[in-house]
């Protein structure tokens, strides 16, 4: 029974990591843009969801509002600051500026919501376990799995079946050629960026009943997002998806069999991938 629970645990944790990693991966793929404020957007989503739940009493509203706030902040950040940093060879500037943003977010959230631990219970009707005979499993992780699959499906449709998606893929494949062919790469990148951080914020809200908000959570999540993106390969949401599941399952089965080495196992996995396929599981080889 423990093996079955570990499977669901791994999948639900993986889906959270997917929400987090997909945005980071997209943004990097399309704009070669490194966003270290990604973990910050995750906790902003969480805090917004927390406030919405407390003020309006509805968790699901938070799932709508959190990503909207996150996306709006992403747009604003891009218009005000980040667009000045686009372009090849400016990675160091991007790292510095987005890390500065991450610190601002960390301080701002502490000023706004304090350093206390914030958490919420699972929303009804998912606040009790599902019991089948002797087997019992909490219901909420299944909601996370559902949300993750839904987002993956929608993202895939967006990228593969719509004009905007084609532009995003074109910009990711060869930005210069795309621009020459008339793809407005700057707006496409801005849109992708907003979408990416909205996904991170969505992750933050969805995670609320399973994770607690406390100072430092943003940087933990940033690290995990980077691991997912590096394992999956930059710029491919399929890569982020499979990598996130792999990390999630490694984590849950690791905890079952070798609880002392869980963290080490995730980084061991990362090291193995870097040795075996430095470009990531589904990444393209660098040109």
């Amino acid at each position: 029974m423990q093996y079955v629970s570990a499977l669901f645990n791994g999948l639900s944790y993986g889906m959270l990591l997917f929400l987090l990693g997909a945005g980071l991966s997209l943004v990097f793929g399309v704009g070669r843009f490194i966003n270290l404020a990604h973990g910050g957007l995750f906790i902003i989503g969480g805090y917004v969801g927390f406030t919405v739940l407390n003020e309006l009493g509805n968790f699901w509203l938070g799932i709508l509002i959190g990503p909207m706030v996150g996306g709006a902040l992403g747009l604003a950040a891009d218009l005000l600051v980040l667009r000045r940093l686009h372009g090849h060879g400016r990675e160091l500037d991007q790292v510095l500026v987005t890390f500065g943003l991450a610190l601002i977010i960390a301080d701002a959230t502490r000023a706004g919501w304090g350093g206390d631990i914030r958490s919420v219970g699972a929303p009804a009707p998912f606040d009790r376990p599902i019991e089948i005979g002797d087997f019992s499993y909490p219901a909420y992780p299944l909601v996370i799995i559902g949300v993750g699959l839904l987002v993956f499906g929608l993202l895939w449709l967006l990228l593969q079946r719509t004009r905007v998606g084609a532009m995003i893929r074109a910009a990711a494949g060869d930005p210069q050629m795309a621009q020459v062919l008339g793809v407005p790469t700057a707006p496409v990148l801005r849109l992708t960026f907003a979408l990416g951080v909205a996904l991170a914020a969505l992750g933050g809200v969805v995670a609320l009943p399973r994770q607690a908000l406390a100072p430092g959570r943003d940087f933990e999540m940033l690290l995990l997002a980077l691991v997912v993106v590096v394992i999956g390969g930059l710029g491919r949401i399929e890569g982020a998806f499979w990598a996130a599941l792999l990390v999630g399952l490694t984590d849950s089965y690791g905890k079952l069999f070798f609880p002392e080495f869980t963290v080490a196992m995730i980084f061991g996995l990362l090291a193995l991938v870097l040795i075996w396929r430095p470009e990531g599981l589904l990444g393209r080889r660098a040109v």
Partner: protein
Amino acid sequence: MSRRLSRRDLLKLGAGLAVAGVLGCEGEEAATPTPGTPSAGQAPSGPPVKVGVLVPTSGVYTALGRDMLNGYNLYFQQVNFTAGGRRIELITEDETGDANTALTRARKLIEADRVEVFTGVVSTAAVYAMRDLLHQSRTLSIITNAGGNDLTRGRKSPYIFRTSFTSWQVSFPLGKWVADNLTKRVAIMYADYGFGQESQAAFRESFTAAGGQVLDAIPYPLGNSDFSSVIDRIRAARPDAVYGFASGSDAVLFLRQFAQAGLRGRIPLAVTGFMVEQDVLQSVGRDALDAYSSLHWAVTLDNPTNRRFVEEYRRRYNEFPSVFTMQAYDGARVIVEVLNAVNGDTSDPDRLVRAAEAVRFDSPRGLFEFDPVTHNVIQNVYLRQVRDQGGQVVNVVVTDLGRIRDPG
């Protein structure tokens, strides 16, 4: 690879900048009177006594640091920041969540600011890192949280006193109580680091001595966010109760997920008190109901000193004090009593030590006194239960487990 490399540096940078931010707004938070300017009416003479306060104002223990600063300020204000005829000047530094940074800050307080008394410290790792500094500089040090056993055992120093607890002191009495009153079959879950290991070992020691049987012991990595596998192992062990040690957001998440899994109410919890202290309860609320715990204090502890302490704290900060507040509040009192005993003359460290050894008073937790051998506090430990008291989820004292002295 540069990413992994940079993470440490980034975090350090981050901690550094966060500190800068915190120090920037210190004034409004600490709200201490301007040091060095004697208030009207009082006539303290001589330069102020410099007291170095090292508590985290950034990182994972931010909330604890804030509680402790509130505790110091509450007591020092009651004596108008004056003792032994001198004004008390607090110099606060950020302990952060990192032991090395904490050591640097402690060194700054002692060597650059030349503080006469040192106090604070949340993390056991940090206090071990600065033990030699405190000892060799012969600075009277009143540690108000960090509870690693060894600080007042193998690594004890005449200059180091502790107003808080040892991990043994809090968890040892619980084991016997569980075996005698709850069940002889438990599963254990604990955070896999020094303090967690010491706590579960202390519980296990008295629990098995009283005939108890540990069915499974499940360590989990500190800073964990998913407790499903821990909960699955607990379920598989089929215990009649669970002993646990976790604190902060780990505790919040475990309690939430334990309730989500439908186990609250089926398998009783008997935990080390920090797992259900105010910082955790205000976040978890009813998901923690019914949990038993042992600690050297409870917000509802019924004695006049505690009633006054809780009432004054609530009036001032509009929330319940936590055990961390109480420890710092008592730490401030120890400092004041020492300064009074030596009439403000801090020139002889050994005289300060003798004065501290003689401190005894009615604390919110009951009678407070130091063990003359170890310099750890001797205190009562209480068995508490989380209950709903008029809509407030608080710990209610079930019984007094007696006066507990760490064996040293």
